[in-house]
């Protein structure tokens, strides 16, 4: 094992800017699984600014385990074959700030852990990317034991737990600023 001691200083990030639309989104980027895949769900929501207005030029990425909690090591995200689960997806929001991924509910990556989807937010006007977690709402005990969630006051904690809709879809809105601002994360070494 190697001790992780940071020796180099990280290069700064910068905003994605307005003109990535012809460069970064790709065909089926938002389809981690095909819509006909058994157990497929829609994960969707809206990205809003400090006035509650939709942000129409935001790009999102998700990275998650499969339904059994396994982390994919498969390549091929950029050339989806509708069969390989790579665990990663990218989508540009639409003109009203709404996004949709087709994916599966991730399983717990370890016994008793609360399953979550990792989300990264990019936008014009946002000078560096933001990270957050989308927790599945079902396993109350695992959620109660989660170290991140239990370190947050209730009104902040709520912003990280997706809502399960009647048809099984997941709803997760992202509020960059203002009332019910989403909790965004920083990691050691950042």
């Amino acid at each position: 094992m190697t001790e992780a001691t940071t020796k180099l200083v990280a290069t700064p990030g910068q905003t994605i800017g307005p003109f990535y639309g012809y460069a970064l989104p790709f065909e089926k980027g938002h389809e981690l699984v095909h819509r006909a895949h058994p157990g497929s769900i829609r994960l969707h929501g809206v990205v809003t600014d400090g006035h509650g207005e939709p942000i129409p030029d935001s790009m999102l990425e998700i990275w998650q385990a499969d339904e059994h909690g396994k982390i994919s090591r498969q390549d091929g995200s950029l050339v989806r074959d509708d069969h390989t689960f790579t665990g990663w997806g990218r989508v540009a929001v639409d003109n009203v700030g709404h996004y949709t991924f087709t994916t599966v509910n991730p399983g717990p990556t370890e016994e008793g852990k609360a399953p979550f989807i990792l989300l990264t937010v990019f936008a014009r006007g946002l000078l560096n990317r933001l990270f957050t977690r989308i927790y599945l709402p079902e396993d109350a005990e695992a959620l109660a034991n989660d170290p991140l969630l239990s370190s947050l006051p209730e009104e902040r904690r709520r912003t990280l737990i997706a809502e399960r809709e009647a048809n099984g879809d997941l709803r997760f809105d992202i509020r960059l600023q203002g009332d019910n601002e989403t909790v965004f994360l920083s990691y050691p070494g950042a």
Partner: protein
Amino acid sequence: MSAETQAESFENSHVLDPAATADSQETINKEIGDIHAAYRQGVEAGGSEETQPRIDFAPYRSSLLRHPTKDLHHVDPETIELWSPAFGHRDVHALESDLTIQHNGEPIGERIIVQGKVLDGDGRPVRGQLVEIWQANAAGRYVHKRDQHPAPIDPNFTGVGRCITGDDGSYKFTTIKPAPYPWKNHHNAWRPAHIHFSLFGTDFTQRMITQMYFPGDPLFSLDPIYQSITDQKARDRLVATYDHSITSHEWNTGYNWDIVLTGSNRTWMEDEDAE
């Protein structure tokens, strides 16, 4: 408002940014100068040096309503966060790293090679990972329907490239030197010439998007996006180095730019290091 005008206003919002102002460059410069002076005072008083842009940076007007006001919540990464998606040559063809051969003719402009290495915070090469770039052409125009800058589109240049890093973390793109272009942040606002870079590490927590600049650009001091990084040493890390050994006889000029991602939080096993 009819649905049609609604749609139109969203379309135009990218051009006529609601955050766009008639402020002068002098006003923007003063704001940047005040923030930087306060930062330097803080460092002299023993405060820590900043290495990343401020996300709350008012001179960049679009950031006003688009930054979280609460502190980022510190968390120890778990499982999925300690891994990144895998990319390979199934995803990216080798020719995608040459932005000058995507059409029938030669693009207009100064042909350049930009190369360097992607490293993690411990200096380990980031191997076999995806690097994506996009940029304006030699006239400062993007191939994007919302870029309304009246500079010519080059039918032989799209401005999008991808590659997979080598075993030593290296990447290399052949492209055209982009030009500066005007934008709507304030009156007579111009961006320094830049290439956008999108990067992945070994951990998803290292995911980043940034911009590479060219040495000696006269627009640096005027640009609130570049100046959102308050520390000069940190700003310098976004500027490529002209490298005559990358320049080739009667063909291209060359730049080197190494990229360091934040530290990996994974517990590295011997076999991964030796992989």
